[in-house]
């Protein structure tokens, strides 16, 4: 049965994604590159001292001594300059120029390129679907191999289960997995399974959702293996000008800290956990009961630890920006309503500032490198603030054993940046190739970073105001860490560079759509290949030869200094 379905797909591949007719400007011209499966070249022509070719996947320019090979979706804009020259600006910071002999040629190619790079009208127009379908056809006879080729490993597909286990959540006393978001019925940009304090009911969660931006409720995403402190993330509270508050939300935030306290104790002495293990199918307030049972068999010092640590609410925005958000119905936690919490504002810039910074950075590459103008782009400064925020989380969790709740406005741009970076610093697992894949899948993809809008490859995602290299900025931060800790990452710089390219290239389906719900609806997982099939642990090209796996749980970094980040250009040029 499965085989027939398979072959059915294969036949369709050819029809749904038919090859296009090749137009040669000159009879003698050959396609100057090897086409991928499903790729078909549409135009081959001549530029000055170069052969230029355009397929449904890439633009290829072959110069005498060099070549340019760029996926179409990586191109942000094409302009004609000085009559004969095409000027291509790329989303990964590259700038490409191509000189033509005549004005007509130049205009013709400008038209073709502008046609080719616009966002797709429907998602199937993206090359990853054609690529996958044709791959299926080619490898129909060797299905097994295909599986390897297109799918991520088991560590990615069963990431949630593995991670809950690996991080050692106490699922008896402290935490539970809520299925409230099954089929994304609560929140479209969240994963289906969420970790919340054990005694918080789904009903309460629903109430909390009504109070949080886009219903993005506080959900726990990391647990410190030895002290039990957690990192949680959410959207901003909808305080608005009216100053609303929500008792369930306040209770949930308190409960995160309480759950940590009981969890860390239980991991400290396994025995007592077993004694007091209870089942909380739908939650239930047990905070009072907990104290009694623990006092009986814990020493005085331990009982002190039961006092929940002060929870740190890390608001990525500046205080002014957070308050300004009240005009739009958002806002920030009012400290009086959230006792035993501390709210800190990080002053990170919004996507519009980051976009502008990136654009001026890209301009830099057109002119001689001057450190002064690099500084004026503020790109490195933004990286530095991001690193600082992540470090703040790391110190709170690791040294002060405090739980942390991170949010910005929507909780899908700055929040994943901070949380994912903090996790990377805290946990050596995420510095392996497998772990890094899990990290990206969970913090970025599962929690709804809007890749389609930010990268501009969603259906009709023409809104330039929505675009921003948020993920790229984060990868740059990872690159800075690589420079500072040459032996701590299993993957190398090439891995990151490739990841940047394929964030935009649309050769793989991993970064399509804005959230997991959409990806489910579009069946991207079944119809495209995963980027991790390329960036897999077995691929030697992406291994850092200096990597030494270490047992140290934490590495504390010195991220203050812009100078440490000065070597920025290297990966991008």
């Amino acid at each position, binding site marked *: 049965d499965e085989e027939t379905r398979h072959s059915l797909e294969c036949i369709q591949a050819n029809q749904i994604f038919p090859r296009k007719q090749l137009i040669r400007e000159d009879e003698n011209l050959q396609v100057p590159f090897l086409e991928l499966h499903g790729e078909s070249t549409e135009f081959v022509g001549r530029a000055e001292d170069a052969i230029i070719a355009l397929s449904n996947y890439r633009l290829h320019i072959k110069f005498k001594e*060099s070549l340019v090979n760029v996926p179409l979706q990586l191109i942000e804009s094409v302009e004609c300059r000085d009559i004969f*020259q095409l000027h291509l600006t790329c989303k990964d910071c590259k700038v490409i*120029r191509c000189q033509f002999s005549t004005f007509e040629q130049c205009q013709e190619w400008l038209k073709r390129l502008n046609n080719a790079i616009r966002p797709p009208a429907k998602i199937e127009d993206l090359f990853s679907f054609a690529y996958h379908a044709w791959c299926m056809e080619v490898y129909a006879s060797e299905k097994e191999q295909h599986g390897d080729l297109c799918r991520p490993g088991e560590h990615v597909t069963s990431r949630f289960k593995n991670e809950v286990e690996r991080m050692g959540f106490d699922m008896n006393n402290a935490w539970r997995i809520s299925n409230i978001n099954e089929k994304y019925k609560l929140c479209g940009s969240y994963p289906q399974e969420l970790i919340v304090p054990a005694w918080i009911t789904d009903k309460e969660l629903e109430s909390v959702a009504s109070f949080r931006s886009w219903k993005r409720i506080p959900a726990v995403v990391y647990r410190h293996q030895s002290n039990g402190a957690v990192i949680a993330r959410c959207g901003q509270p909808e305080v608005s000008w009216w100053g609303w508050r929500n008792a369930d939300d306040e209770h949930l935030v308190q409960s995160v800290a309480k759950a940590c306290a009981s969890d860390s104790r239980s991991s400290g002495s396994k025995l007592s956990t077993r004694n007091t293990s209870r089942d909380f199918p739908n939650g239930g307030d047990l905070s009072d009961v907990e104290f009694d049972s623990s006092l009986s068999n814990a020493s005085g010092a331990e009982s002190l630890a039961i006092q929940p640590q002060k929870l740190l609410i890390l608001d990525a925005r500046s205080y002014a920006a957070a308050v300004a958000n009240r005009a739009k119905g958002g806002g920030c936690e009012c400290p009086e309503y959230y006792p035993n919490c501390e709210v800190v504002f990080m002053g990170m810039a919004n996507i519009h500032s980051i976009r502008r910074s990136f654009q001026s950075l890209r301009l830099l590459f057109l002119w*001689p490198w001057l450190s002064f103008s*690099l500084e004026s782009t503020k790109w490195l400064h933004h990286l530095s603030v991001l690193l600082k925020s992540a470090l*703040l989380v790391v*110190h709170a969790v690791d040294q002060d054993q405090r739980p942390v709740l991170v949010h910005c406005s929507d909780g899908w741009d700055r929040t994943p940046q901070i949380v994912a970076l903090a996790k990377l610093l805290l946990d050596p697992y995420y510095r392996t190739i497998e772990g890094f894949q899990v990290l990206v899948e969970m913090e970025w993809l599962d929690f709804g970073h809007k890749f389609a809008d930010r990268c501009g490859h969603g259906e009709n995602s023409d809104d330039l105001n929505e675009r921003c290299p948020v993920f790229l900025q984060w990868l740059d931060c990872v690159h800075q860490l690589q420079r500072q800790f040459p032996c701590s990452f299993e993957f190398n710089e090439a891995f990151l560079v490739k990841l940047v390219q394929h964030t935009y290239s649309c050769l793989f389906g991993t970064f399509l759509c804005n959230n997991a719900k959409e990806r489910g609806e579009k069946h991207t997982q079944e119809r495209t290949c995963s980027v991790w099939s390329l960036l897999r642990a077995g691929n030697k090209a992406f291994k850092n030869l200096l990597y030494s796996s270490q047992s140290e749980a934490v590495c504390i970094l010195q991220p203050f200094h812009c100078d440490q980040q000065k070597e920025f250009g290297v990966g991008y040029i």
Partner: protein
Amino acid sequence: MFSLKPPRPTFRSYLLPPPQTDDKISSEPKIKKLEPVLLPGEIVVNEVNFVRKCIATDTSQYDLWGKLICSNFKISFITDDPMPLQKFHYRNLLLGEHDVPLTCIEQIVTVNDHKRKQKVLGPNQKLKFNPTELIIYCKDFRIVRFRFDESGPESAKKVCLAIAHYSQPTDLQLLFAFEYVGKKYHNSAHKINGIPSGDGGGGGGNGAGGGSSQKTPLFETYSDWDREIKRTGASGWRVCSINEGYMISTCLPEYFVVPSSLADQDLKIFSHSFIGRRMPLWCWSHSNGSALVRMALIKDALQQRKIDQRICNAITKSHPQRSDVYKSDLDKTLPNIQEVQAAFVKLKQLCVNEPFEETEEKWLSSLENTRWLEYVRAFLKHSAELVYMLESKHLSVVLQEEEGRDLSCCVASLVQVMLDPYFRTIIGFQSVIQKEWVMAGYQFLDRCNHLKRSEKESPLFLLFLDATWQLLEQYPAAFEFSETYLAVLYDSTRISLFGTFLFNSPHQRVKQSTEFAISKNIQLGDEKGLQFPSVWDWSLQFTAKDRTLFHNPFYIGKSTPCVHNSSVKSFKRTKKNYSSTLRGMPSALKNGIISDQELLPRRNSLILKPKPDPPQQTNSQNSDMEQYFREWFSKPVNLHAVILPRVSGTHIKLWKLCYFRWVPEAQISLGGSITAFHKLSLLADEVDVLSRTLRQQHSGPLEACYGELGQSRMYFRASGPHDTDTSGTPEFLSSSFPFSPVGNLCRRSILGTPLSKFLSGAKIWLSTETLANED
């Protein structure tokens, strides 16, 4: 339960008395016999007990108790307390952990909290108050702070004055090296010649340990120069001894190399026309016969043309192909020594004198504003251009400079380091420093400002080490030594025990030490002056084990086949080019991706800068040079031949180990390039062990024994197969390794959690400037 946590750090001004919060220290501090470790000839001038050495600026909980002494060599803090928070200490055999050599002191500041007074102490100055605090600013960017709250006010004052006095001597002969070497001579009076430790006198000894028995040629003798001529295969050049006994010039070595066609008699006549009588000196010859020559300007305007012509003809005659001479006027092309000094002062302010975090946002422009990197780049770039002349154009190059003993030293040695792989070994590098700096009359005494009164201070030697570091950074497998070696070498310029970097010229050493010997009744025999210990005798400073840190695990010795070179080289270099959408570098500017290689910045360009002076340089020559560089960079590098620096903005970097090693905030614990160094050392050691084992298999028992004796050349040793896994990064590694910034007090805190840092916003800062103004 009571809390074991330390009291919350309270931010406070330096200028207020410290609150006596710490209960632990109120109890009577331990009094033990604390005795300083003294070198021969070293005497304690003054001392004070119950001194507190401050370790952190915002808390006194780590402070150490002990005795502060001032000797004629160093200030020393002697304590029984272990250094807190320090994970590693690179031990110098001459200096204790808390010692600062007097020649390393930059500025001495005394403070009285109660009277809110402070004073920068110069020599022979009076101090009207009893100091409660002493802050020493060191030339190597360290800041050490002592408090005298519990010590006798008078003796504290005396020690401060003693330090001020002895660190700013009025006479060269008061530098410790004289006392030290005098003692050595006295103690070995029964010996006929020199000081007892054999290699101490000759100084060349021991390389960096680890098996090399070769000695560094000092170029004090005829034969050293003769050997260098033979080594480079120079024909048409001869060693000339007209300056024996410094009869011609007091700033030239006794022996030097000149064109064979110039007779001694001619040279004697010509010499009068040169500033300082510094006639042309041969530095080095390329295998194609082109020579590198340095000389001072001709002051005699009338004779100038004639003499110039004669010299050039002679150099041309010494060239096997009779090639022309290319003259480079360094005064016109490179920054002068005052500009270099100004840049260095700004760099120091940036690295030390400003709160580190606060400079962050403007870091790049502040760094650029110091112009330090720009100057490093200028020297590298100019040297690379001269390499082109020697290597590709087959021209002999003459370096011209007013006195010919500053910029020439730097350029001549850089050119040789780029061209000749021998100078990239430890012995070779030391020999080029002897040849082009020590013997050629670089004025170390004035430029390093050992006597603290020179207006002529300039860190040209550091600039040379920095430029070498840039090359090492770009070609890690081309150098036998590590960056630790370069940093330690820089530190050695400020230890006044060695003769190497103490004098303005070889003549000054002979003259001064002879005077000293006479005054001290030392019989010199037939020696020319006292033989001071040489810096190159590294065993005086470091144990054999510690010296292995000088070895670069990347280095590929000559015996290894060439295949390895390219693969190792590509390890670093290809990294920069692997963007998949771009293969190979487009050569035309108008097409293709813009790579920074094509875009050499305005003033950094190898190619574009119009050169005003050398008339023979035409545009076509410029484009030839451009072509040469482009071709050279497009090919794989042979590490046993020429190496050329990339000089564009992104490639010239700040030498962080050297400038940041005492800055706690800049320290990356368990990170930095040292972790890669560590990992590679293990690999290199493993390879060594394996090849030794292989040799044992192949050879008889005799050789097997020898193989066993062979020590590892790596500091980090690979563990044997039966050991447990030790491949993880050792805990003590940090980006400052092997140096430890703990206790460097330009900093607010060594521990402060980011929370307090970010949220409190409190700042205390103590700057030299404000202090200096407030006296």
